[in-house]
Each structure stands twice: as structure tokens, then as C-alpha cells.
């Protein structure tokens, strides 16, 4: 498995969040999640300008065997989406924590909602326990 970057926070539902220098939050799904889904064939993106709530579904990743909702780790407004995934959804399989980002949120309640997220070690423990 790929090393989990130390600056990420995770949801139990396998989304990652990275707080950028400008205060925005970039969201994707974990390398573990892409491995479970298998080859991705389609990503349904939110629209720029959408209001999202922490814990609500706002994107869908679809592989040949499953379509899964992607939940937003934080509340706020979507400021960017990774349109390149439309043609190359497999980018998530190849680079889940980098080029495979899905959308960016300008958060409205970051300080509080961040507390709910897991740090890399806690997330690693979670997937360890799910595997057993």
C-alpha cells in the first residue's frame, strides 16, 4: 500500500481531506478505498458553487462492480472540481492522494468539523481492523 501522506485527515467512509495554505480543503478517496473499488470507470462530480454539508454525499465514484457515494468531510462551498477525471477516472486508482483529487471546498466550519476527522495513524488502524 502507498504511504499515507502525513498532512491528510480521513473520514471513516474513506474520504481524505487536505487543508491547503489558503484555507481551502481538497477532498479525495483513500488509496485503500480505490483498491476496494477496483478499476474506476466514472466519476460524478459536484458542480462548482454547490453548497455541501459535512457527511453528505456530493460525488459518486463508479467502478465496474460498484458505485459509491463520496461524502464531504467539511461543510462549505465547492470552489473547484477535478474535471480531468471525466476522461481519466483511473487517475484515482493511480494516484489517489495526488492527481486523483476530486473536489475542493471553501469550508465554513473547519475548526469544529476537523475534530471529527481521523489522523493518518488512526485511519491506518481503522483499515487494519476492517481487514480482520
Amino acid at each position, binding site marked *: 500500500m502507498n504511504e499515507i501522506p502525513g498532512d491528510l485527515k480521513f473520514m471513516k467512509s474513506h474520504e481524505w481531506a487536505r487543508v491547503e495554505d489558503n484555507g481551502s480543503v481538497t477532498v479525495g478517496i483513500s488509496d485503500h478505498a480505490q483498491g476496494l473499488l477496483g478499476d474506476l470507470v466514472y466519476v460524478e462530480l459536484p458542480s462548482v458553487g454547490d453548497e455541501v454539508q459535512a457527511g453528505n454525499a456530493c460525488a459518486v465514484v*463508479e467502478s465496474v*462492480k460498484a*458505485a459509491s457515494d463520496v461524502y464531504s468531510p467539511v461543510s462549505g462551498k465547492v470552489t473547484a472540481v477535478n474535471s480531468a477525471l471525466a476522461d481519466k477516472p483511473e487517475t484515482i486508482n493511480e494516484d489517489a492522494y495526488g492527481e486523483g483529487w476530486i473536489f475542493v471546498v471553501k469550508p465554513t466550519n473547519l475548526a469544529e468539523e476537523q475534530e471529527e476527522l481521523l489522523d493518518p495513524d488512526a485511519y491506518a488502524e481503522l483499515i487494519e481492523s476492517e481487514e480482520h
Partner: protein
Amino acid sequence: MPFIPHSESDVREMLKTIGVSRIEDLFDEIPASLKIEQLKQVPAGLSEMDVTRLMKERAAQDGTPLNFCGAGAYEHHIPAAVWAIVSRGEFYSAYTPYQAEASQGTLQLIYEYQTMMTRLTGMDVSNASLYDGATSLAEAVLMAERCAKKGPRRVLVPKSVHPAYRKTLHTIVTLQGIEIVEFDFCHEGETGGGVSPAWLAKQDFGAFTALVIPQTNFFGVLEDVDALTDWAHEKGALTIGIVNPLALSVLKPPGRWGSGKSKSHGADIVCGDGQPFGVPLSSGGPYFGILACKQEFVRQMPGRIVGRTTDLDGKQGFALTLQAREQHIRRAKATSNICTNQGLLVTAATIAMAMLGPNGVERAAKASMHNTRKLRDLLCAIPGVKQVFARPFFHEVAVELPRPAHDVVERLAKEKIVAGFALGEEYSELENALLVCATETKTDADLRRFATALAGALK
């Protein structure tokens, strides 16, 4: 593929393993007040002999009348080989088998079906079929709303759409918060029997997600599909075509609807009933639904699609694709929770289309058109009988009688003729109008027998 249900000892063993004494205990969480212990209306079981006898008696009541009724289901010649092939053990299942890829023959047949449907409709993609024509319209409307994402959740439906389709649509979509706005067709003049584009251009319906366009419509009439498609697209809405697939062999396919002046070309979603190909009338079903769309909307399409691919050795194979949004995987978030595909009927339709070929399908369509015109001429030669609508028609036409059509239908039934559909049952203003259809199955003698009987009934 054999289907072996659990034996009593299997059931006992499974219950023991999970520590439950009776199957009923598994439903304990449902409050007793919600359970129906017995269905009073359902009689006790009958033996096979009794059922056979009952069904034979019921079937004999139908008799073999001379049928001129269409109204959504059409009597066409079905070559004997069609159902002989369909009845083969390899095909004889209502469903796509589980472990679908183990049944390559079934998947190839569905793939061929999809290919035929995309060619007839001129659309990019067809699914493997839906339940029937009416539910295919409901699925098309739900699909349009998904395509529009946060759309206005309003869909425009002319009253020239089949009344049963409109009722089914209403039942399925209104509780999902989608408003169905019905509007009237034009009754008189050149555009009588269809939607008048000039009238439509003057209306303000507010924002809407899609316009439903029937071709042909319930009256057998050809709508001005180009103008209607352009109008909807100019309003930023999608278009949903309801088609009779047989008619598409002689009509412009929905994939090319529109004048070409509008930015967006062709219908966006196409639905309809596939019954005219190889499926007998059978007192109203089972039939099967068609659903096709533009490539850009394929992810919102319900049901399944079979794709052609190659295996590791480079050999051709067929696989289910785009099933990730079906309910066995997606549960409540599936694109549809009512869609089923009608494997056996699709098998019949595909074999029928393959046997007829493009030319045979076109010949059946043209023969039906000609027969209905001959019938129209014979009927309209009877004093007091005239064609109701001026717009061109395919193989079905409304004629006005000098008295309520319902009475005439009952009278001719006594002479073993199904005269048609009395439009007054669904359109109160058309009480005297009779919708008739003469497919390629009717001879000149049949047409004359009908005309003579009608003339007698009107005396």
C-alpha cells in the same frame, strides 16, 4: 441453469446455525399490526388439472374475433420459428441469468437487440429493455431529471400521449416530487390530432426539464417532431420520444429529430413498447419496454447494458456493463428500483427482427399503413362516418361515427369483430370517435367484412 429451492432439511440446518427456531421469527421486527396473516381475496390453491380446465374455459371466452383494435398493442404476424426458438431451454428464462457472463449466448442476444434498437431509433445507446412501454416513459422522465441534476422537476406531457402511459407516469413520478404538466393537443384544422407548434410557441409553461413527444401519438397521428424537438431544446429542456419501433422503419428516427437549426439535435431519451416485434397480444401482456439515449446521458440510464469485449486470449466475449447503479449493488440509490428487463420477450423480438430483416420490418410497417388507409376509405364511405383528425397517420386512425363509439363496439363484438378503441372512454369530447387499426394481418375481405358490419350497425 437449474434452480433448486432449499429442502426442508436445508432450512432446518440454516435456522439452527443462526439460532432461530422458525422462519417467521426472522420477521419479528415488523409490528404484528402491519402483517397480513391471510389474503382473503386469494382463493386456496387448485390442482394442475383444475387450473388447466379453468384457463381453457376462460380462453374460450375470448374466442378468435377479427381484431381492429390497436391503442398501444398491435396484432402482427409472428413467424412460427420465433417462439419455437424462444422456447428452447437455453433461452427460456424471464431474466438475465445470475453469473451472467457464464451465459454468453444470452448476452450476445441482448447485445444484438441493443444494436437493432440503436439502429431503429438512431440513438447512441439502448439498454437491455424495461418492464413495458408505460413504465419506460416513467423511467425516461426520472432519467431526464437525473440528467438535469437540480432541474425544475417539471415535465410537459401532451394529452396525445397514451392515457395509460400518462396514468402510470403519474403514479410513479409525482410522489418523487416531479410535476407532470399535461397540455391539450390541437383538435381542429391542419394540425388536428397532434400538438400545434404554432400554439405551443405562444405558451408560457415556465421552466421545465423535458418535453415528451409521442411518435406516433395515441391517435396514430404523426406529431411535428422536428418543430417540437427544436422548441424544447431552445427552451433548454430535454426531449423524450415515445415511439412504436415498427413505425421507425418508415419514419425519421428520433436520433435525427429537429430541423438542424437548433444547437442540440435529436431526441435525448427514447422510450416505448417493443410489443409489435414478435410479442403476441396475450390480453395485454407481458410486453417489454424500450429505452435508448444519447451517449452523454448513459450514466443516468436505468437497467443494464451488455457490452462486447475481448477476453485475455483476444477472443470476442460479452459482459454486463454499467450495472454498478442497479439495485443489487446500489440499493436505495439505484437509478431505478422498479426496472426489470424482460429477457424472454426481448428474445422473441430480437429473433423476430432478425428473421424479418430490415426489409421485412419495413414491409410489415408499409403493409399496415396501406391496410389502414384502405380501411379508412371503406369506413368513410359509410354515410355519417368521417376521419376525425387531419394530420397524417401511420397505421391507426380515428373515425367519427354518427353515434357513441362505445355502443358500436359492443354491437360489433356480437358479430365477433373487435371494432377498435372507443376514444370517449379516455377523451370525453371524442365520444363518437373510434380508433381503428388494420395491420398487415388483415386481408381485403377482412376489411370489407368490418365495413359491412359497421354500416349495418349504424343503420
